[in-house]
């Protein structure tokens, strides 16, 4: 006897298998479109996968919690992948070391710019306080950004989303913008991508070259640290609330 399809759905909807497979499939579809389009920025695979998944989850009335029970296995790999960034960083260490003074100066300039520009624009356009606080640390890597957000009165889970969106914007437009303002050095491009767009920028930088990837991984780590120290201070100094 053949089972009732709704029984199968009840089983699948409650098991991590379905949402894990969906996550990988959505990403493969996004990546396929990205390649087919000749790597057009608008076909960013992360963005496409997210849109696709949100549409499907909404259509099937599935909660994010249920989805995450399957997707957490992918999410978990972020930790070991971050550790793995030590390898390109080590391989490019000589170049990085020679650029140390320039790295420190641009880290400070970039980190302050990231926090101030986001906060001021959101404030000028009338966003409420908790939303402004949530957007302030958006260039830092997710766990740092969420911690800072909580500390300054934001909503950590909103911050997580804004961090990812910032990452996608940087990955989509970053290299084009840098070329346009005459920044062509792979190391500099990588550093700017990683500072602005953390891990997603680093994923993009690794596609450019290993040099870009190494500088990007470094920028991600350093800006995480800088944001956790500077963001609470800057928000306090601005005294927007």
């Amino acid at each position, binding site marked *: 006897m053949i089972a009732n399809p709704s029984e199968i759905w009840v089983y699948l909807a409650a098991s991590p298998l379905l949402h894990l497979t969906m996550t990988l499939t959505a990403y493969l579809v996004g990546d396929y479109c990205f390649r087919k389009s000749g790597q057009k920025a608008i076909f960013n695979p992360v963005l496409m996968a997210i849109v696709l998944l949100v549409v499907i989850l909404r259509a099937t009335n599935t909660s994010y919690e249920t989805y995450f029970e399957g997707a957490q296995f*992918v999410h978990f790999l972020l930790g070991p992948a971050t*550790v793995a960034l030590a*390898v390109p960083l080590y391989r490019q260490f000589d170049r990085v070391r020679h650029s140390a003074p320039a790295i420190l100066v641009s880290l400070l300039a*970039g980190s302050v710019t990231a926090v101030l520009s986001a906060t001021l*624009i959101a404030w000028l356009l009338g966003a409420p306080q908790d*939303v402004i606080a949530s957007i302030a640390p958006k260039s830092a890597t997710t766990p740092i950004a969420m911690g800072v957000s909580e500390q300054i009165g934001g909503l950590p889970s909103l911050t997580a989303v804004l961090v*990812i969106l910032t990452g996608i914007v940087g990955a989509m437009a970053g290299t084009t913008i840098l070329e346009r303002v005459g920044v062509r050095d792979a190391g500099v491009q990588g550093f700017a991508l990683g500072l602005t767009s953390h891990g997603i920028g680093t994923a993009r930088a*690794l596609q450019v070259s290993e040099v870009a990837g190494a500088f990007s991984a470094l920028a991600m*780590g350093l800006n995480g640290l800088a944001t*956790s120290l500077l963001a609470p201070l800057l928000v306090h100094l601005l005294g927007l609330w």
Partner: protein
Amino acid sequence: MSNRIVLIFTLLLACQLAGEVVTRLLRLPVPGPVLGMVILFCALLMRRQVPDDLSAVTGGLLHNLSLLFVPAGVGVMLHAQLLVENWVALSAALLLSAVITIVVTGVVMTWALRLTQEKKAGAA
């Protein structure tokens, strides 16, 4: 699967675990995995080379790094209402801030590199 791959994965997880423990112990403002990256980096500095297996496993992980951000990104559905209510402020702040930050960082670094290289060339 060769057990070398298991060994490499254990190494990566052990670095992350050590990072998590140390950040909590010392109350550092850095997440565990970032400190784990520093730990592995120091280990490589001492070893003075990247073992082939480590290179292969990390290459595979990093090649698909952007996939790993998808589950957190889907969290956008939790805040649909807040995002819709503030969409003008949020999209302007996200887009403009990302562009401004990329440009400032890239231009300042290019300028700083040029300055330090000229100094070195001048000293030589």
